[in-house]
């Protein structure tokens, strides 16, 4: 069933197509397979150990509760990329969403990461979120470029925050995209006070 414009086909730079759809509980096993197929180095930059059934159960519970919204990309019958919008439904950061993105190594450099991230940004705006953040390690140059193209800017640097697979300490960057101005324009539009009009 179509919802929020998904599923949709995304054409990649190499001419191939992937189907991007909203993730549901039915995608659980395929998601686990996808994350288990990532290299140790790739998984190191992820916040959770995404290879365990326990992680999957928590993730699906967040999807069910609306605290996470996920897009999955499929090609040749398997998941080849995933992007999730995490948000707090309560508390002082309820206007903020965090985007996490993973793409299979054989699909990188083809625009899939951009397509997934752009889809999640659109979902976030539709959900009324005002700010999006993404945490990126200094070595993730391609991912940083992708988010910059989507309007994200470096907002903070946490020095030596990440230990990579070889034990080296890396800086962690917080990228942010404030989209509150979009809705500020709508707020102005519904003010109902327009003495300058009709003159």
């Amino acid at each position, binding site marked *: 069933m179509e919802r929020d414009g998904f599923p949709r086909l995304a054409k990649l730079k190499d001419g191939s197509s992937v189907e991007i759809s909203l993730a549901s509980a039915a995608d659980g096993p395929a998601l686990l397979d996808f994350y288990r197929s990532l290299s140790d180095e790739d998984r190191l930059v992820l916040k959770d150990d995404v290879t365990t059934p326990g992680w999957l159960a928590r993730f699906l519970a967040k999807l069910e509760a609306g605290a996470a919204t996920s897009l999955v990309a499929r090609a040749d019958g398997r998941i080849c990329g995933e992007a999730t919008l995490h948000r707090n439904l309560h508390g002082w950061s309820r206007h903020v969403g965090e985007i996490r993105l993973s793409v299979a190594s054989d699909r990188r450099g083809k625009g899939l990461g951009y397509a997934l991230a752009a889809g999640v940004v659109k979902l976030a705006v539709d959900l009324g979120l005002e700010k999006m953040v993404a945490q990126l390690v200094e070595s993730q140059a391609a991912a940083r470029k992708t988010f910059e193209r989507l309007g994200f800017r470096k907002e903070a640097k946490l020095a030596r925050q990440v230990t990579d697979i070889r034990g080296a300490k890396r800086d962690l960057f917080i990228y942010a995209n404030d989209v509150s101005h979009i809705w500020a324009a709508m*707020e102005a539009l519904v003010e109902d*006070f*327009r003495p300058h009009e009709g003159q």
Partner: protein
Amino acid sequence: MVSRVGSPPASPAADHRGRVGEAERSERGGGGGWGAEGRSEPSQGSHIGRTEIRVGGLGGQGIILCGSIIGKAAAIYSGRHAALIQAFGPEARGSACSAQVIVADEAIGYPYVRRPDILVLLSQDAFAQFTPQLKPDGLVLYENELVQVEGKLPATVRAFGIPATRFAEELGRRLVLNIVMTGFFAGATNLLSIDAVEKAVLDSVPKGTESLNLKALMKGYQYGRDLVAPA
């Protein structure tokens, strides 16, 4: 404060200075009367006569935008004529606010609403102020968490309520309350085609907000259609 009606625009494009604009009559537009007419879309070029609409509520609810979208849908995207007059209180927020919209097949000589056929109400004050002017067989569309109508309307008047505020909040933004009401207007009255109203919404809302506004429109539209559909 009542804004002056602007001069008729030279082209069918919207005149944003108070008047929505009057498009030359054409046979391409939708529109086909209002009321509980089932689920059919307004037919091509069908007669709608002159329909007077009053949208009333409080400043900050998007009353003027709601009226403007109805007018644009009629004049620009349905080939009808439309006129909009806005009235608002001295404060930007919270004071009484209303829009007078006239949608007609023929040129509109007198742009003020005298006896509304349809009221779209988002506050109890607006209900109290405008229902005495409603035609005996008129239609009241109201936000049912903000307006109480029980026992306060003549039996000949039809009234339909919608929890538009709740719908807007469920969609993520209370701000789109007026767009839910606009969709409800389109669905419950069948006066204008939903395609025309959708185009008018897209033409009116800021870039980046289109998707949520269209969801809000369709939420209200579907609710309106379901309410007036024959059992």
